[in-house]
């Protein structure tokens, strides 16, 4: 047992080192000093209090999407549609705020209803993917991918059509909401303690759900072997569908937070890739919700830290995505290699028994 744990750690560290090596190679290839670049990422993430604030602002939605995706992963579902579910959350939240902003309701109520509407919107969009999978036999990867495109088109239609700013619509989004409808932030800061608290609460809930409840265990059983789960009495398709709805609700919350707490309007690129990044986080932590928070934090720091690369080295800020993707790929690769190593199934040709 001990030994296999060490092997596990060794493979994970190996993957991390290999990912750094590969990114370093790319940095060298484009002519940027690797050490300087890494230092600037660190500075960009942790160098000042406002950098740290940005880091926490992007941590929140990532935590929410990761939390959602962990649920569908546990149920054995590849909910690629999480990106679109986040977008629908943003759209529903915007819609709710727009329709209530002139009613004279207390702002706190309007914000709360907006966030709730976001969760409902995300859940509904996920429900479509789930229903397609359950009743239509459409693989959730294809269904989700298609729905992602639809959600993007819907946003652009709204931003340039019915919800456009006075005058002409623009890529900068809809007319910002009145300050009273902004999710309250800390004094002199953009960071909202509400969104931070909500996302931490979400990941805690998912952690407890998967670890300690009958629901979580049954969900895992469905994911590991749905036939066996069915024979043991678990209503399998209902559980799959419910996993979609829950994941969609979390993703929708992420979208709603982007609208109410960060941008205060609907943007064409409101999801900012947090859905996909959530998938990467969930893959990296391999179903273990407890690791999702630190890994999401690490990913968020790469995201915010790499913003400065543009100014210093003319590197696009999406460079962080390169490192993140390498990391996920290599960790998955390392996991595959580890399992082969442990089973000792794989032997070089010359070691196999001759026949």
């Amino acid at each position: 047992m001990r030994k296999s744990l060490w092997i596990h750690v060794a493979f994970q560290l190996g993957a991390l080192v290999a990912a750094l090596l590969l990114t370093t190679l790319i940095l060298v290839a484009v002519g940027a000093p690797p050490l300087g670049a890494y230092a600037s990422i660190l500075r960009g993430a942790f160098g000042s209090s406002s950098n740290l604030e940005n880091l926490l602002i992007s941590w929140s939605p990532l935590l929410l999407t990761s939390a959602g995706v962990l649920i569908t992963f546990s149920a054995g579902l590849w909910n690629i549609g999480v990106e679109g579910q986040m977008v629908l959350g943003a759209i529903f939240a915007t819609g709710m705020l727009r329709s209530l902003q002139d009613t004279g309701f207390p702002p706190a109520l309007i914000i709360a209803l907006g966030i709730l509407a976001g969760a409902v919107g995300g859940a509904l969009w996920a429900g479509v993917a789930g229903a397609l999978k359950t009743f239509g036999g459409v693989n959730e990867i294809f269904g989700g991918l298609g729905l992602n495109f639809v959600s993007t088109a819907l946003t652009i239609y709204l931003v340039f059509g019915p919800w456009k700013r006075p005058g002409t619509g623009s890529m900068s989004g809809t007319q910002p909401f009145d300050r009273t409808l902004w999710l309250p932030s800390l004094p002199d800061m953009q960071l909202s303690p509400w969104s931070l608290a909500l996302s931490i609460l979400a990941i805690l809930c998912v952690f407890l759900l998967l670890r300690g409840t009958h629901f979580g265990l049954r969900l895992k059983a469905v994911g590991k072997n749905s036939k066996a789960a069915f024979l043991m009495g678990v209503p399998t398709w209902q559980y799959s569908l419910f996993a979609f709805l829950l994941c969609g609700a979390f993703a929708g919350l992420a979208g709603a937070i982007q609208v109410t707490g960060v941008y205060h309007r609907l943007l064409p690129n409101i999801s900012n890739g947090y859905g996909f990044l959530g998938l990467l986080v969930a893959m990296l932590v391999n179903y273990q919700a407890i690791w999702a928070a630190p890994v999401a934090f690490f990913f968020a720091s790469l995201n915010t830290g790499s913003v400065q690369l543009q100014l210093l080295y003319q590197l696009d800020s999406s460079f962080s995505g390169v490192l993140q993707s390498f990391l996920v790929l290599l960790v998955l690769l390392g996991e595959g290699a580890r399992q082969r190593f442990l089973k000792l199934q794989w032997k070089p040709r010359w070691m196999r028994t001759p026949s």
Partner: protein
Amino acid sequence: MDVELRDIHKTFGPVRASVGINLSIPAGTIQGILGENGAGKSTLMKVLSGFIRADSGEILLDGRPVLIHSPADAIRHGVGMLHQDPLDFPPLRIIDDFVLGRAGGLFPDRSAAAQGFRMLADQFGFALDPETYVDSLTVGERQQLEILRLLWWGARVLIFDEPTTGISAVQKEKLFAALRLLAEQGKTVLFVSHKLEDVEGLCHRTAVLYQGHLVGEVRPPYETSKLVEMMFGKAIEVEARNPCPGQEITLSLKDLSVEDYRLKVRGLSLEVLSGEVIGLAGMEGSGQGLFLRSVAGLVRTVGGRIVLRGKDLTGRSYHAFKRHGAAFLPASRLEEGLATGLNLTEHFVLAEEARGFLVDWRAARQLAQKRIEDFNIHGTPTSRVEALSGGNQQRALLALLREPLALLLLEHPTRGLDVESTIYIWSKLKERCRQGTSILFISSDLEETLHYSDRVLVFFGGKVTSPLDAGGLTSEMLGQLIGGKGAPELKPGKAA
């Protein structure tokens, strides 16, 4: 082409599938390979056709040793195999399927292929239109397509794995005629079957396998009783039978009909008493599996009624059956029975009725520990199920069953287990019987069926005998019934 197998060994983990097999088949022969399920027939054939590599041994074609490491190697040497389920491409047209896999160029020469196809089809009298789609064909026609394809590829040794399963009598005649023609042309035909009648009617000689060993070769005229004895091995010394049927009727089936794409079981009526054990005998795929799953509520019936403890459950879901006290244990333990990746404790929590929202892990671990001791499972509460041996997985499955149960439905409860585990598992099952649980079980082990059943139903091609009193049966009689040869006094037909 002459085929010779020399000292072929193959083991899968603890299972010895081929043990020192020596077999030599001259060209122009139809060689029968007979044996019960799991006797090692398919393994041996897959070694010859390159799907499996033997642990040791030699294959000689026309006297020359050859290395066959893949099906592609095999076909290059002229060895082709027809699998039990046709390996074709249902969404393609026949001609595309025919061309597929043949080496040569970027653009397949369809017209030459079509010509070759027609010529071969005419030779064998197969009426196949190369432009129709494969999924519109019957199983028999798909076999014909496979035969033509292998011949076009240049096969001179053709292996048929249980080719008469799921085809009509007319198509069987056509198939046999084709096989005889192949033999006349000097091709070597290996005919794998567990059906005595087919082997007796077709094969020039027959090798019988039993538990991975070649127990002997037989030539016509065949003596059915001798084949049966070789096929099922010698009778093992059995302990006293221990029937304990009660008085009430647990399960009542009235005129039950169930079918799938290849089989129809019609009009089966049966009343099972509490504590009674009913064995379902028959070669795999004869309808017993379908029947058992329909009684579990897993397969929708097409007619008749299922009444469990006085409650009509016809057309209800498996979960409804489960709520009314039925339990089903599948044969494929890791595919359907247990969830790989979860440990024993988690399985026990899943199997029990959920109380409350949160799992009480302490209680769960205690329960797991107790059941592990009760059922003598070699493992700990945190052992993952895939780490257990087959016997321990089966014990775990039994340990997962709730109490009390009205009806227990088992698929091959002791398949792949050693004698000790088998006896242990049956002692646990008999315990259930004494508590009033009725058992229906499928087994391909004749001794097991005879020894533990009170009554036996024999399935053959979807037909079912009336319930036979196990006490009045011998393994020889049962073997003949399973092979489709009804002993006259038993009259297989529709069940009473």
